């Protein structure tokens, strides 16, 4: 999707970073590629009782228990995801590793710091807190996902 000529150009800029972009609920999002551990196909997840609706469940990722989150549901995009056909992006934020179920992975983008703009402050959208920045790529608005906000923290367990 990116202009091939553009990419080296961008990366010569010292502040350019690479992002993995993907489609979720028909919208373009991306995450810092350094936070991505792997990309894998959908698998049958074990349902977690009493979990929020966006938690699909847990799967076995080579011996570890990986929670899978329906990103469209988490972002309240309302789109129903078909768990068998979709793609799971395994991301790490802080100590936690989770799988994000998305519609499709699109591309790897090099975006320089200067091309990122802060998201507008629109109180009506809870979504804002999940987006840390915006950028324009070939006339498409791409949102940089704030993983720290998307992944709920586990420290609110019974203390």
């Amino acid at each position: 999707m990116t202009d091939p000529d553009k990419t080296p150009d961008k990366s010569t800029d010292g502040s350019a970073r690479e992002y993995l972009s993907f489609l979720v609920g028909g919208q373009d999002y991306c995450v810092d590629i350094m936070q991505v551990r792997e990309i894998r196909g959908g698998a049958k997840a074990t349902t977690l009782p009493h979990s929020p609706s966006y938690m699909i469940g847990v799967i076995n990722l080579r011996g570890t228990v990986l929670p899978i989150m329906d990103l469209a549901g988490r972002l309240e995009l309302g789109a129903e995801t078909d768990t068998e056909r979709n793609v799971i992006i395994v991301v790490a934020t802080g100590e936690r590793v989770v799988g994000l179920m998305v519609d499709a992975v699109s591309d790897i983008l090099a975006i320089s710091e200067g091309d990122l703009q802060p998201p507008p402050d629109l109180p009506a959208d809870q979504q804002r807190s999940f987006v840390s920045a915006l950028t324009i790529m070939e006339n498409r608005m791409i949102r940089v996902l704030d993983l720290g906000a998307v992944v709920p923290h586990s420290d609110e367990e019974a203390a």
Partner: protein
Amino acid sequence: MSDPMAEIRASFFIECEELLEALQDGLQTMYDGEGDGETVNIVFRAVHSIKGGAGAFGLDGLVSFAHRFETALDEVRGGRLDADANVLKLFFTCNDILGDLVRESRDGVEHDQSRIDPVLAELDALLGGTPAEADEPDEPIEFEVTSLDFDLDLGAAETDETEDAGDPVWAVKFQPSAMLYANGNEPLFLFRALRDLGALTVTCLDNDLPPLADLDCEHAHIGWDMRLATSEDRAAIAEAFDFVEGLCTLDIDQIGGDLAIPDLPDLSDLSDGSDDAPLDAAAGTEVVTRAEPEPAPAAEVAPAPTPPPVSPKLEDAVAPAKDKPSVASAAPPSTPRATVRVDLDRIDRLVNLVGEIVINQAMLSQSVEAAGIPPNSPVRTGLEEFQQLTRDIQESVMMIRAQPVKSLFQRMSRIVREASADIGKDVRLRTEGENTEVDKTVIERLADPLTHMIRNAVDHGLEQNAVRESAGKQREGTVYLTALHRSGRVVIEVADDGAGINRPKVLKKAIEKELVPADSQLTDGEIDNLLFLPGFSTADEISNLSGRGVGMDVVRSSIQALGGRISIQSEPGKGTTFSISLPLTLAVLDGMVVRVAGETLVVPLNAIFETLAVTQDDLRAFGPSTHVINIRDSFVPLIDLGAELGYRRPLDDYSGGVVLLIGQEDGLSAAVVVDAIEDQRQVVIKGLQESYGRVPGIAAATILGDGQIALILDPIDLIAQASGLTKVSAPAPAQIAKPKDVVNGARS
């Protein structure tokens, strides 16, 4: 860790922990009135070694405190000071401060001088007002001389002096040269090697020792004169000195016993004929002056300690060794328990790998079964053996992680001392089963809840001194801390001989705080369990010790997080006992694999009392939306697992299902209904908490033979939170909707 100095420093601090443990043990032995001269020596040496090491690392604060402490201990050792209870109390405080100082030094934290000074003043007062001569300059020298640690060995050697009358006695004169030390040899090892040959007496020859001022520390001034009664010949004696040939002057002479002529041929053997080993004919002795030094590691000379047999039942092997009087823990290294220090990461990797083997083996069994291979075929029997082996390996690996609870108990004895001093009660802590081994993680995570319980026992459990006396009890209260293995679990008990739970007061408080309805009729056991309710504190005044907003509810939840249970027994006027029962390991569990509403779950086997098939006859409607089941004429509430976990709505008809009867120590029980039992097997526990968070009713997850994840039930938590809904007619609350639609704050 690449810095060698940092490594040495790190190992010094590890050693300090061991020494502190020995110190505490020794003091406790003395306090219990079972100490003897050797105990005092052990205590003294522990402090001394810490001081020595600290000196080498320039930890001045630590050195000066250890020195003062040591001086006081020396008075006791020399019999000039009587170690009565008061003195020992002070020593315990010193021990605590010393431990603090060690840790502060390790972490590079400033010492809190305001804590130290009063104790030092007390020490000085103890020593009859004569302030200890804290002559810093002669510190290092003193340390160098005594920390050689062999005075203790010689003590042991001398006791070996039961001379076998028949054995010839040899006189061995051994004068090391400076080069011997420069090459890293250690005379102690030579003595030990000789001691293995027979009864050995060692006399130190310090005639050449110059006055301190002229002492050249690079020079060897000391020699030894030994008497060895052995049936071995000269060659065998000389062999002990093989590695120091040419680095010392050595005379071996037969002086008594069987007057055999010295074996001259052996002499030539010894000198190999290759060099100029002159024979001092006049003295009839051999002077070895071989030129080429052999810088062989001295350790090889030392007799290899026979390691204790390594058996999977480590407990059996270790326990007897450790059950010897606590002297053993600080005993000279001549009889060490062969131990290896291993990085915890490596063990954890091993544990994980073994976990993978267990999963893999389960997968293999499953596919062998699926292939339709008959049960008695070689493949199946081989697989069964493999299963047994896997289990053994797993148990052994788990045992590596196991540690005695001793370190934990020692921390608790400090808590008791500090807590009792704070509120002016006389309290004695009695511990039992310190060598009970538990998984390291369990020990670590037990520290906080146990601290809280111990403080509670001292603060709330025991009465004030005067009250105790008027009740005809001993003035000094006792807190018992016990650990033992019971049916595959570890039971830790915290008991006090105090007044017991004041049930009317507890009930009144609970009603006041609206934790229970005002008209509730509760049994004694139920009242006791009110203590575990969040926000409950019975102390009339919030004391410094307990009642800081953290109550027994926190203790209970941290115990439950470890897969444990806690229960109370209390008898008015006699005391209260809290029992914690914990799994031996956090890594595996025997479970029953069950199916409910299309999901596979694992129920811990130890929670299941029995299983039975449901017949409609046994079921009785209880309320509008609940059932009880009649089990041998007692009615147990029925819980639909599928409905409780939100997998399905309650069924119309439960007949054909299977009931698991779940119970726990305090009698709470329920009949959990599932669709079918699939298997009974050992599963590897995979934490859910770290990756996702706490799920009510779920303890952890595991990976089944087909690679799918199954959740492990926490039956007690499930029952505690269960709605008991087992009828469709009831209005459906949010909980029994499809899981996807559940919106809740379940993780709050």
